[in-house]
């Protein structure tokens, strides 16, 4: 009978021993998360006050950051958006730190992976930001250049260049984030290759006469130039 009672109580003892070992970890996690949330909230308020004090919203309005946000259909004030972004990053970090206090290997791995992933996120954001600036600059350069050369489809041409650059930079960002990298690279290669092939065929088949005229004109201009120089 005693053996039977021991058989019953042994698992319970083991569970309570496990719980006694695990409980401080849970408590640590709860304390870290609670303190972290409070800290994140305070940082959020302080950051918001700081951005208001330096008139970040007004600066964003003047520098076009607000207009860029509206283009992406973000209808909040720039300071609020920046502060919310930082707040959520802090919250994620707080939860990661809290969960790591549990000392569970699977969660530790997850946290480690997340930490290693942060540089990739930063790179992707930088690529998108750079891409936005480059796309705008190149788009306008193409419009101005094409209009000055008298092309009728200047805006259409510029839009096509813009779309191409947007696709390129999004593909680069996704590749950096390792989001289905094989598919992204393959899709980009297929699309880019397809466009180039289509243009080559269009120009090659449809523009034989135009190409011939251009080459002939260039040749003629070259020979005329030679004559003038000779005279």
């Amino acid at each position, binding site marked *: 009978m005693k053996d039977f009672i021991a058989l019953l109580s042994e698992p319970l003892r083991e569970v309570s021993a496990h719980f006694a070992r695990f409980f401080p970890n849970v408590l640590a996690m709860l304390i870290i998360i609670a303190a972290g949330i409070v800290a994140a909230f305070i940082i959020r308020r302080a950051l918001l006050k700081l951005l208001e004090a330096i*008139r970040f*919203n*007004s600066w964003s*309005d*003047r520098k*076009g950051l*607000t*207009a*860029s946000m*509206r*283009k992406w*259909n973000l*209808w*909040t*004030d720039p300071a609020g958006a920046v502060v919310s972004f930082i707040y959520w990053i802090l919250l994620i970090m707080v939860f990661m730190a809290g969960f790591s206090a549990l000392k569970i290997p699977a969660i530790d791995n997850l946290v480690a992976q997340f930490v290693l992933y942060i540089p990739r996120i930063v790179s992707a954001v930088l690529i998108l930001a750079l891409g936005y600036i480059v796309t705008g600059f190149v788009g306008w350069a193409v419009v101005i250049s094409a209009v000055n050369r008298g092309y009728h489809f200047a805006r259409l041409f510029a839009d096509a260049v813009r779309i191409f650059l947007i696709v390129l930079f999004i593909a680069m960002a996704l590749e950096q984030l390792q989001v289905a990298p094989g598919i992204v690279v393959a899709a980009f290669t297929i699309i880019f290759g397809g466009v180039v092939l289509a243009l080559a065929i269009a120009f090659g088949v449809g523009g034989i006469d135009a190409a011939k005229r251009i080459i002939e004109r260039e040749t003629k201009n070259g020979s005329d130039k030679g004559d003038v120089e000779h005279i």
Partner: protein
Amino acid sequence: MTDFHQTGIITTLHNLGKSSLERLEEELKAFVRLRPVALVLPALYSEFEGPAMPGIVKELAKVGYLKEVVLILDAAAEKDFQRVREFMSPVANVKVIHNDGKRIKDIYAAFARNHLEVGQRGKGRSVWLASGYVLARGLSDVIVLHDCDIVTYSREMLARLCYPVVNPNLNFVFCKGFYSRVTDRMHGRVTRLLVTPLLRSLDSLFPGEFPFLKFLDSFRYLLSGEFAMVTDLARVNRIPWDWGLEVGSLAEVYRNFSPLRVCQVDIATTYEHKHQALSAGDPGKGLMRMTVDICKAIFRTMASEGAVFSDGLFKSLSVAYLRRAEDTIMKYEADAAINGLFFDRNGEAEAVDAFTKAIAIAARVYMEDPLATPLIPNWNRVTSAIPGILDMLTRAVEEDNR
């Protein structure tokens, strides 16, 4: 049929009885290829529940020469906005700006944080924002505006209002509509009994010194809400956000253009819209508030032209005004008698008493703070302060109308 007499220093285009809507619209269709037209409609949601708006929409649906119609909706919840979009759907190329929508509120927040005082909610601010949207789209060269409470609306009003500015051979940059507000009696008390006597009294106190007074007095119905203008004017105009909108707009037109390029056109034989209560006891409501704002706008514009006001001058003005207004009542009494119209002489005298008080209030406010001007900054200044604002405004309206 009216007479063909030209009054004042601007051009008056009469309705001489030979107008043909079909001819006007055909000509306009040809002219708008050179000068595309945007129609701006400032409206309250309550006006969609009244009798005027169904008729206006029915008529506008038949108009084929407008490049765009911009309705700016005030005092409307989100579901009201969606109802209005549905209501306006028979009209081609229409966009509705939701003044109380999240995105437009964000635009107003951007103005506020950049210290651009765009004033309180009202027709002036709505018209200004809608003009900004027209400028942002860059599709139109002419902006036409009329109220949304016209019960007797016909598209001939719109055609006649557009025509002088849209016709490239006529060289007008601004055109104001006029009409007689007569049913079984004469309406338009503020114009008849306040503005005209006040302008003439001021002219008698500053004889010949301010051509601006002659300019204002040239308009047959200075307070009419219907006008057409070139979009350039919308870019440089600084308009008041309060009831001084009409006077303030005309002051800007006078400042920027020769009177030779300004006209007024007879747009309707009958015109009926909602009437406001006098509210003689409360200067913050009804016609009293309107008259105080109008008087302030006149005083401030004159001061900007160099007029020096003093307490003594304002006392003389009140007396001079009262005399002229009483004389005016007698003129209108005679006019009513010969036309068989009802004439409430006592009501008219009460209105004049109330307007005299309004002049005194406006004078006091002006003397306390002559620089407290309710003018909204012009769009050139706004785009200088916030370079991307026109893009933001376009995006807000496009998203709201998606």
